């Protein structure tokens, strides 16, 4: 397939977004068209991606560039609307367009009846455009464009229900926290240009692989930290993770697409793409690993104490992103990207099934208000089960394979690092407390996190679908209740009426909403089986431009067996133990779970309240800023407005009052004025003559 076709991957959804935006002004009868337009535009993008996937080279560093048009040419600053296609790009595109199509398909049914139906799909189309641009960008400026674009669409979609104050606040919070990261990214880009004198990514990677620009030591050390800040903001790592749980105010398809599968993985992608630059700074990669692991365990502990089913998955996403960053930090870009790939499938599946539950219960999200739903919603129950198994890392499901790679890499780094920090051969028997202690600790942390992950995942599943059947519906009237619509013949808009009766939860329509989930479930199971096709995921990641050859294939030895085998044993053990404990407290003997929670209620409150980080930010940052704003407002009103502006304003008035007496209304004054003027000119002329 002609590689020039990749131009359409971002631009078709953009076109679709424009069409959807136009349709938003049309009467309701026509608005349904927005959905197929959006889904088709993304689906075509996916097909194009699959088409070119066969034609790209898998050898190290081969890539092709497709230029759409010349954009900025200023001296050495070249930033074109150009797309850089290498195996990593193709992998990311498959995730973006593939999961994007499925989520958009699901959203056709989920968003039915919502007055903002077309607006939703316009924003989703715009998002796919921005995300595809980000992933395919040939230069850092274009990548930043996509970066900002996905932030904008995230804002639009989180604040989709714009008359809900909590949604509006969440959208603002997401955008502002993202901005903090973006600042770091932007400064990093500026500095990269002054150091490498080019904006094009392939050239930067080549220069970095060759050891960087000579003499630019400070730049080499600090640029990765700036980029890292951007990645932390976009991918919700500590300390910039606070926006993601609040982002659950958006519609569930948004949570699935943007805050699970695609946008939040942009940070991981950016670091993977620029890994050659990160390798130049000795402290950067360990920092990423530490932050990733810390975020993973912190978010996992918080998820244990959340009652809102979407919040649980939100913190789970933060935690799994932490795993990806840990993978990046231990030089296992393969592990990180592989986990990104599998996570997209099972997390999207989990969010969408949670959305089905929410939809069925008219907006109810609190797991204390629902129980035993599996008879009413069998498909949703078992689809979510698949997702839960994948998330928990149960063997042969996708999550198991990808998490395995990361933890093994961490253990290897920990056990194989020699005294000078270099990697030694695998024959060195594992020292638990050697120079690589940091990594060993991180590996242990991530193993503990895996256990907690299993626990909170199955806590949710057991609570929602098992046990005695009882539920309290919510009160969300935006959710379509087809049998209760009244059509107004004038403008075709639907009037909703308030329901106060007990609405029966029912399964979602199959072809519209459950079918895409089945596809996702297949992915959640099989995405890890990449060894079937000759380990194609690993080939794609290692075949990217700028891949270093430091990612070793040998494993360290721990307790007499290779780390790989070690994890193959530990993984299933953890999974079984986690499920068993979750079953004890949430399936078989729920009162004992409540008793335990009461016993340790101070810990429970701490976890439920997210370690009070939001409150900390409020006290330390938001309130001082607001006070400062009041100070500046007073300054503005009194000094700038009062003194300076009004002072300057009175001057013309004074001049006017001075000149006014000359205008007496006497006719001959004009003649007199002319005479005076002529006299002055005559005098000047005569004086000049002398």
């Amino acid at each position, binding site marked *: 397939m002609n590689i020039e076709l990749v131009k359409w991957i971002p631009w078709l959804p953009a076109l679709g977004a424009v069409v959807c935006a136009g349709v938003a002004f049309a009467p309701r009868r026509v608005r349904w068209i927005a959905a197929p337009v959006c889904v088709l535009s993304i689906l075509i993008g996916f097909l194009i991606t699959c088409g070119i996937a066969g034609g790209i080279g898998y050898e190290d560093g081969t890539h092709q560039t497709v230029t759409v048009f010349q954009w900025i040419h200023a001296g050495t600053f070249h930033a074109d609307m150009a797309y850089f296609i290498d195996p990593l790009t193709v992998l990311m595109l498959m995730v973006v367009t593939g999961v994007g199509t499925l989520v958009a398909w699901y959203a056709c049914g989920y968003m039915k009846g919502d007055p903002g139906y077309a607006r939703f799909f316009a924003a989703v189309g715009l998002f796919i455009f921005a995300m595809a641009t980000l992933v395919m960008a040939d230069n850092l400026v274009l990548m930043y464009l996509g970066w900002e674009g996905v932030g904008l669409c995230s804002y639009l979609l989180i604040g989709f229900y714009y008359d809900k104050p909590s949604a509006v606040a969440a959208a603002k919070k997401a955008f502002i926290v993202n901005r903090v990261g973006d600042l770091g990214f932007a400064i990093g880009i500026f500095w990269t240009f002054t150091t490498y004198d080019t904006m094009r990514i392939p050239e930067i990677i080549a220069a970095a692989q060759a050891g960087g620009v000579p003499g630019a030591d400070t730049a080499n050390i600090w640029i990765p930290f700036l980029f890292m800040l951007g990645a932390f903001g976009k991918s919700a790592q500590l300390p910039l993770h606070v926006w993601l749980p609040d982002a659950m105010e958006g519609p569930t398809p948004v949570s699935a697409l943007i805050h699970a599968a695609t946008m939040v993985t942009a940070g991981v992608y950016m670091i993977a793409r620029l890994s050659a630059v990160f390798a130049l700074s000795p402290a950067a990669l360990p920092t990423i690993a530490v932050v990733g692991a810390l975020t993973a365990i912190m978010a996992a502990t918080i998820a244990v104490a959340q009652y809102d089913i979407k919040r649980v998955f939100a913190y789970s996403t933060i935690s799994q992103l932490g795993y990806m960053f840990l993978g990046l930090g231990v030089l296992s870009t393969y592990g990180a990207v592989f986990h990104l790939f599998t996570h997209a499938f099972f997390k999207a599946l989990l969010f969408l099934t949670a959305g089905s539950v929410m939809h069925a219960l008219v907006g109810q999200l609190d797991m204390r208000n629902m129980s035993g739903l599996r008879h009413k919603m069998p498909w949703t129950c078992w689809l979510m089960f698949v997702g839960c198994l994948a998330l928990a890392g149960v063997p042969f499901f996708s999550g198991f394979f990808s998490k395995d790679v990361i933890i093994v890499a961490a253990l290897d780094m920990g056990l194989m690092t020699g005294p000078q920090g270099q990697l030694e051969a695998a024959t060195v028997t594992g020292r638990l407390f050697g120079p690589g202690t940091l990594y060993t600790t991180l590996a242990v942390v991530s193993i503990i996190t895996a256990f907690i992950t299993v626990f909170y995942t199955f806590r949710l599943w057991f609570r929602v679908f098992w046990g005695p059947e009882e539920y309290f519906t919510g009160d969300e009237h935006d959710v379509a209740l087809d049998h209760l619509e009244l059509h107004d013949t004038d403008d075709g808009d639907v009037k909703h009426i308030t329901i106060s009766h007990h609405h029966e939860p029912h399964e979602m329509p199959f072809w519209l909403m459950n079918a895409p989930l089945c596809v996702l479930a297949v992915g959640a199971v099989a995405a890890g089986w990449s060894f079937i096709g000759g380990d194609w995921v690993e080939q794609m990641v290692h075949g990217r431009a700028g891949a270093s050859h430091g990612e070793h294939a040998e494993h360290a030895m721990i307790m007499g067996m290779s780390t790989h085998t070690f994890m193959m044993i530990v993984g299933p053990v953890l999974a079984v133990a986690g499920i068993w404990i979750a079953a004890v407290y949430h399936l078989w003997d729920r009162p004992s779970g409540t008793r335990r929670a009461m016993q340790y209620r101070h810990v429970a409150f701490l976890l439920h309240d997210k370690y009070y980080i939001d409150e900390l930010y409020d006290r330390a940052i938001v309130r001082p800023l607001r006070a400062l704003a009041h100070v500046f407002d007073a300054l503005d009103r009194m000094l700038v407005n009062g003194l300076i502006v009004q002072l300057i304003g009175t001057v013309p008035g004074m001049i006017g009052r001075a000149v*006014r007496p000359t*205008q*007496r*209304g*006497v*006719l*001959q004054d004009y*003649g*007199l004025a002319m*005479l005076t003027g002529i006299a002055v000119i005559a005098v000047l002329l005569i004086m000049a003559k002398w």
Partner: protein
Amino acid sequence: MELSTDMLSHFLLTGAALFVLGLIGFITRRNLIIMFLCTEMMFQGVVVSLVGFSQFHLNTTGQSFAIFVLTIAAAEAALALALVVLLYRHKHTLDAQAWSELRE
């Protein structure tokens, strides 16, 4: 006959005197018609200067321009008096002060 510079200065002085008197009259008088008469006098002052220069340079340029000036004065007379009539119809007085509302 060529004019000497002395004779020329006489001509110019006369012209200047006529012009200045007309100017002062225009500025000082309140009657619209008298104001107009003074502008006519200014014209005549210019004509005298022109004729004097014509005789000084011994060509007819000045005199032919003087004819132009007379023509223009006549045309202006027609216009000006028409305007005065209109103005009179509004205020029923020929006093220029009546129009002093055109001010701040």
